């Protein structure tokens, strides 16, 4: 444990406050960029998550202790499991996104087919026949 003293403590609090402010500013910027259409939805979510994590870490620096076993590679097995889980999550998420996109395209295709058939069959529809009479 490093003794920081009263002045050092105040300085650390200042750095924390500054870090939170900077993170909040970057968070807001990410939203502004999204509203302006400069960034897509996924990219915005990524940046918002990143700046949120940064703000949380600045607010609660003791949380970094949780990452120590991974960062120091003290427990190789744990590191592999954590990295493996992260990769699996990314993979599953990507697959889910792809499925959603494909589903949306198929829905739009089926709708267009239905409307196309409707236009084609329009003269045979009851109301159109009534009009002809």
């Amino acid at each position, binding site marked *: 444990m490093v003794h920081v003293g009263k002045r050092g403590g105040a300085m650390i609090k200042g750095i924390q406050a500054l870090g939170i402010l900077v993170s909040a500013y970057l968070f807001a910027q990410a*939203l502004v960029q*999204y*509203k302006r259409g400069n960034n897509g*939805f996924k990219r*915005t*979510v990524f940046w918002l998550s990143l700046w949120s994590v940064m703000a949380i870490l600045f607010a609660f620096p003791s949380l970094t202790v949780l990452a120590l076993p991974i960062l120091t590679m003290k427990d190789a097995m744990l590191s592999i499991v954590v990295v493996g889980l992260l990769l699996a999550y990314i993979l599953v998420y990507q697959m889910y996104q792809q499925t959603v996109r494909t*589903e*949306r395209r198929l*829905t*739009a295709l*089926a*709708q267009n*087919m*239905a*409307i196309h*058939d*409707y236009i084609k069959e329009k003269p045979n*529809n*009851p*109301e159109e026949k009534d009009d002809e009479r």
Partner: protein
Amino acid sequence: MNDKPIFVFLPACNEEKHIEEMVNQLKQLELNLKIYVIDDGSKDATGDIARKAGAVVVRHPVNLGQWAAMRTAFMISLMEGADVMVSVDADGQHNPRNLPKLVEPILEGNADIVIGSRFVEDKSPEMPRYRRAGIKLFNRLVEITTKKRLTDCTSGYKAYNMTTVSKILPNIRENQYGALEFIVEAVRQRARIIEKPIRSKNNAVSKKGKIEYGYNLLRTIFERIIHQGV
């Protein structure tokens, strides 16, 4: 606005038991209606029965879900130049005789979207308790997101001013479960949404009672919140 027909759409999937009665009841109304049935990939004779009953049938080649059927209905209404459109559930739970009550505020220019609410007059209408709880949850979520208090945001009985719909529709991201997203976007665009009391019959086989339906509505509203950065 009064001379043009009101476009009535019944999204239907395997509703051969109710569809004929629904179409016939709508035809009995003294209104200039154009009745459409969106046959959402039915495996029974829904489409044929509806056509024989005098409705125009638009058929989805596969089942796409109720909101996809609504989207198709909006697209056709816009294509045909409709001013007012009404959606009615085809499962027999909605009374077609309530239709004039829903359309009136739009024709008079007092509203853009009119929701037929089962909860305005009757605080506990006939329906399973879990479904009632689900509707309350969705109402609350809509209220949190938009500050608009509704009593029956998931109701399938709605009337729409198509000019308003034409502005809202391009901003709807969801293809299959967009009912709530539509309301959220409508409020964002300052559409005038009001509710009118309706009475409905409990329909035990309603697809809206399914957990999957509820989950997907929740998903779309949360996606909307993230998307909008609310």
